């Protein structure tokens, strides 16, 4: 049998929300698995396996040195990772499929279960599916390819668009940025590379799906998006992994350039298993009159540290970040946003909603910075936390640095608990306590869910419902 739908044995008795369609393990025969651990040899080996040019190998080796020299972050959540006990590279197939039939049967079945081929048929302009370290399937509508749109995995981009990658990689997020950006730069594999030419507006979303399957596997995709002048794109990523008893690490880097008058929307819906450390760096630079939007749904993981950023570089640039975090038992969501106003008349908006349940902890950590000279800039930050029971926790860490007088910066934060009176009201209409809580939570995140395309909104609501199941105890 190729794929095993059986739920993994779990040591914890309370894993509600984990017993769902994402929690299955596929038996595969990987083509190549680098030895456990991290050193120059392994990094060089990854580069060799990928037949990379020397400049990329050097980029990796340099990043490894940076990684080794950097201390662990002293803030955020507790990170308990043995970097020598992780597999950094696992190549699942010999080549990438252009049709699903080219993809090894057991891996194809995995993505079938996750509903990717079906979604592709219905409403996507292009798909990338990454399994462990490599992208195993890629497609792009013919029409977009003709217009010069590039949507490929980043490894292929190094080979086929080497000059473009070399010019930009690490310019938005250099390895020196933080320890995990350095780690990613050293061992990165997979991820999407997107270029949208001037004036091309892509109507349907491009989607990437990241699946970790093996135990103690690290996934380090690297995504780069360039949206040229006046162009538009909506990129969506989904991430899942099965539940193991040991920890896995997901540490991605996403760099985005939004040129003059362009729009980029980047939507993430992740539902990691409870043992994944999800430490991700995402940053966009937005030029004149452009718009960068991050929409970020964080569910699952042991610890997520993620603060999508927008640097507004020229007048009229706008940055919008909407995020939802759901922290349940044994989970810490340290999520937030970063907006940096580097030019006059730039505008940003952050809306962050977090839900803590069953002993979970969520923190909002955000930076709003207005540089000297960025006159007439406006920023508004709203973060709302909903706490479902007395064991759960929510914190807010807003950092505001304003170096200019003539600006408008607003920050609002609220923390609410589901009230006895609200529950009583809904129950008096025949709803059970669980249905009532679920309804209050879905109302709480509704302002954000309504920003999602319909298919993702349905998925998001479903995921929240799964998290809410059995919430009454």
């Amino acid at each position: 049998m190729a794929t095993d739908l059986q739920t993994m044995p779990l040591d914890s008795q309370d894993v509600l929300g984990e017993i769902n369609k994402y929690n299955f393990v596929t038996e595969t025969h990987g083509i190549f698995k680098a030895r456990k651990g991290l050193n120059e040899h392994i990094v060089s080996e990854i580069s060799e396996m990928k037949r990379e040019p020397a400049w990329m190998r050097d980029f990796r080796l340099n990043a490894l040195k940076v990684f080794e020299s950097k201390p662990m972050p002293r803030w955020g959540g507790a990170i308990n990772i043995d970097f020598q006990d992780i597999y950094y590279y696992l190549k699942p197939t010999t080549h990438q499929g252009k049709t699903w039939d080219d993809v090894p049967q057991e891996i194809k079945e995995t993505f079938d279960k996750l509903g990717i081929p079906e979604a592709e048929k219905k409403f996507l302009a292009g798909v990338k599916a990454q399994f462990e370290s490599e992208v195993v399937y890629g497609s792009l509508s013919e029409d977009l390819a003709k217009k010069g749109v590039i949507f490929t995995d980043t490894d292929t981009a190094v080979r086929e668009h080497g000059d473009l990658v070399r010019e930009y990689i690490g310019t938005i997020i250099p390895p020196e940025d933080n320890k995990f950006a350095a780690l990613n730069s050293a061992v990165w594999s997979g991820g999407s590379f997107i270029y949208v030419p001037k004036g091309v507006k892509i109507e349907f979303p491009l989607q990437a799906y990241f699946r970790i399957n093996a135990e103690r596997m690290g996934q380090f995709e690297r995504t780069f998006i360039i949206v040229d002048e006046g162009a538009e794109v909506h990129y969506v990523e989904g991430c899942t992994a099965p539940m193991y008893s040991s920890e896995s690490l997901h540490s991605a880097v996403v760099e985005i350039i939004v040129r003059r008058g362009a729009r980029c929307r980047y939507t993430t819906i992740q539902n990691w298993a409870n043992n994944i450390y999800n430490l991700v760096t995402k940053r966009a630079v937005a030029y004149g009159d452009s718009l960068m939007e991050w929409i970020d749904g964080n569910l699952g993981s042991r610890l997520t540290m993620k603060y999508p950023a927008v640097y507004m570089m020229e007048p009229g640039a706008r940055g919008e970040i909407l995020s939802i975090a759901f922290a349940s038992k044994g989970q810490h969501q340290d999520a937030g946003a970063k907006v940096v106003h580097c030019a006059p008349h730039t505008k940003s908006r952050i809306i962050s909603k977090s839900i803590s349940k069953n002993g979970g902890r969520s923190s909002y950590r955000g930076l709003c910075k207005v540089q000297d000279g960025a006159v007439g800039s406006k920023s508004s930050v709203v973060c709302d936390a909903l706490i479902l029971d007395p064991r759960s926790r929510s914190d807010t860490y807003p950092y505001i640095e304003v170096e200019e007088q003539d600006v408008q910066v607003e920050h609002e934060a609220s923390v609410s608990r589901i009230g006895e009176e609200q529950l009583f009201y809904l129950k008096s209409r025949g709803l059970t306590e669980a249905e009532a809580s679920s309804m209050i939570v879905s109302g709480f995140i509704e302002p954000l869910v309504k920003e999602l395309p319909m298919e993702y909104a349905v998925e998001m609501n479903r995921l929240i419902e799964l998290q809410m199941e059995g919430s009454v105890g």
Partner: protein
Amino acid sequence: MTETLKISNLHVAVEGKPILSGVNLTIHRGEVHALMGPNGSGKSTLAGAIMGHPKLEITEGTIELDGRSILEWDTSERARAGVFMAFQRPMAIPGVKMADFLRHATTNVRYPSRKEGEQLIPMREFRKELREKMAQLRMDEEFARRYVNDGFSGGEMKRAEILQMAMLRPKFAVLDETDSGLDVDAVKLASQSIAEIGGAEMGILIITHHDRLLEHNVPDFTHVMLGGRIVETGGVELARELYTEGYDQVRARHPEDAAIEKEMTSIEKKVASGAA
């Protein structure tokens, strides 16, 4: 046998302080009862006790629906068994549309054995009925798309409560000051609506200070509450008397209860915001 809601010797405390001390009241389906009394006499507490408010502690007595005690039943079960309460201060549920909320509630109440996650009544069927009921209550269709009680005016909230009653079609309904905060026309409309919805099907307990809500819902019985007990029961003429004369004569007729009332007023004021 007519179905009944029977309250016997009901004693209720809030945070250890007695509020109701021996309430007796029997309502048959098809009857209209008015419950009047000065502020702090325990009217809202009685409503909350019938619905099963978690802060209220039943220290003695029973509440029976068709001969079965409902005291151990969860609020949700009471609702599914056909008990309804129109709130004096309905709660806002931001982000949840009236229509979605009502579809869920209506399904649960009409199919009391429905399990969580099971199908709701078909959208088309539900919308049609909701539209009819809203037209009957002269409510704009837009109303169904608004978030539950979020930013509603006082009048809108009360009408939303009546709409919920119309959709849920309870056997017994307690209307807790559904007329408060409404202007004359709004009360008239509410009064008419309640009469249209109620008919012979429902047993209604109307808690009110005025007689306007009773205009189209002529009470079969009027009860006066004082100091946590029902001290007098009469017909419609008692309601008119109380409205025009006030409660001083009642107090004079029941000096002991009036004394308890005086003592309790300060307590009830403290808990009024919390315990319905």
